[in-house]
């Protein structure tokens, strides 16, 4: 039997609960920022140095755009997405395994408060890492910003989607290796095959067609539009696909939370 939300509480109380959850989640990753922010920035920088050195002279993706400049938005978005996922998923599984999730299950926290708090914290972690990657790579590459608001919209929605997916993965997984499997066999391949390192126009037709079933492709492609004003798919269409995906995942996650699946025995 699902719990119903029929005892409303004062909006101030609800805001306090939500704000507390968000700040707890932010403190959690900020206290180990070298690991949660520093490490992914370093990884992105290594990708940039190695790939641009290896391919820089030989590969052109968009006309007039050097490979290193093409690569940067992809690496930024990869950092945003992977860290948004990591934030919610690792927080939930740690709480489940150490047992301190009980502190969130005992109070009158609603499912919506819980969901949005974890998603918002994931978005913030994703954006902080993304901004860090951008700031560091800007030292090495001349960047242009044709439509920064589009880029921001894609980063926001993409990290929200990955934050919600991280919540699902964290709730589902009962051990750290199950979560690692989710990350290594689903999130990693989807991000790597989404066009972070190439434009799908360089792929054979079959793989081009397949890429269009990868939601990550639309995130990277749309985000890159914000930099170069050029994309494989119209940015509005990509953003719409992303928005629909987020709504579907959010609804599924809220249902999962309400059912008590793997949280309330």
């Amino acid at each position, binding site marked *: 039997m699902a719990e119903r939300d029929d*005892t409303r509480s004062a909006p101030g109380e609800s805001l306090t609960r939500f704000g*507390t959850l968000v700040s707890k989640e932010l403190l959690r990753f900020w*206290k180990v920022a070298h690991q949660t922010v520093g490490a992914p920035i370093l990884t992105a920088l290594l990708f940039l140095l190695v790939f641009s050195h290896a391919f820089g002279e030989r590969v052109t993706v968009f006309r007039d755009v050097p490979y290193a400049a093409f690569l940067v938005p992809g690496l930024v978005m990869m950092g945003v997405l992977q860290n948004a996922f990591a934030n919610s998923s690792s927080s939930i599984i740690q709480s489940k395994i150490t047992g301190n999730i009980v502190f969130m299950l005992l*109070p*009158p926290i609603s499912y919506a408060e819980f969901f949005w708090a974890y998603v918002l914290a994931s978005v913030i972690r994703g954006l902080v890492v993304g901004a860090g990657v951008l700031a560091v790579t800007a030292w090495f590459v001349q960047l242009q910003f044709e439509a920064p608001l589009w880029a921001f919209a894609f980063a926001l929605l993409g990290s929200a989607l990955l934050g919600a997916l991280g919540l699902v993965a964290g709730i589902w997984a009962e051990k750290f290796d199950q979560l690692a499997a989710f990350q290594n066999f689903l999130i990693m391949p989807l991000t790597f095959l989404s066009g972070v390192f190439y434009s799908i126009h360089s792929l054979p037709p079959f793989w081009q067609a397949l890429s269009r079933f990868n939601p990550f492709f639309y995130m990277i492609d749309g985000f890159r539009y914000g930099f170069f004003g050029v994309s494989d798919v119209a940015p509005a269409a990509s953003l719409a696909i992303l928005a629909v995906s987020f709504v579907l995942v959010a609804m599924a996650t809220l249902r999962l939370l309400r059912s008590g699946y793997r949280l309330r025995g």
Partner: protein
Amino acid sequence: MPMTAAIELRDVEKRYGALRALEGVSLEIAEGEFFGLLGPNGAGKTTLISIVAGLVRANAGTVRVMGADVVREYRRARRMLGVVPQELVFDPFFTVRETLRIQSGYFGLRANDAWIDEVMHHLDLDAKADANMRALSGGMKRRVLVAQALVHRPPVIVLDEPTAGVDVELRQGLWQFVRRLNREGHTIVLTTHYLEEAELHCNRIAMLKAGRIVALDSTRNLLETFSGLQLRVRLAREGLPARFPADVLAQDGPLYTLRLRDTRALEDVLLSLREAGIDIVELELQPPDLEEVFLRLMARHG
């Protein structure tokens, strides 16, 4: 108007696959009681508490806390309830004060520092306020768990094995504090393995076995009904008169342990021995004991 029960369970059932953890448990705990929930491991105590706290969902039956259904009105029910879990769980990222502020926030409370300070003071945690949770001893972590359960001043407090693995000094401090809360009107529900603690503190007790309540009464009635008095006598010689008016619990040569229903039965025993010409060397009367009640009940429903 009937008083609202602090906790009310009606026909609560819980199954884990083929295992029936609770089989139709009904129970009412009145406001202000100090209630003990006893039973061997696996009897269903923690399952029952978890259902009351909303951590586990029952397969059938209803549970209310201060009149609020724990499923349909979960927020109201959870505001009324403070739970001290059995496991020593903590969040290693935070200090004691941070932990308590966060827990207050989860209950929608801001600016709760005055009460947090008071709770920390009563639990002797002041000196550790800014220590990280990881740095605390087991006993100190237990105190923080108690403090966390109290941040929202719940009228009903559930303690699941609160003194397991806790040193004597802390145990006494903890009981003093819990008794004070009870005197101030909080309902206390306690599960414990230490029967002397239940006997000392609880005014009413339920005994659980294999998912069923096998006894539910005031502590005094349970003791009188199931335990009676124990009489240890050393006789001048071995052997009791025929048609002896008491049960023999144990015998070691001329040393007998007898069960008496009440003090009047003592006279019958003495009379019977005198009439048979058996002299008494030594005599000791022992008061009723909850452990005895527990063992007898568990054996009877085995």
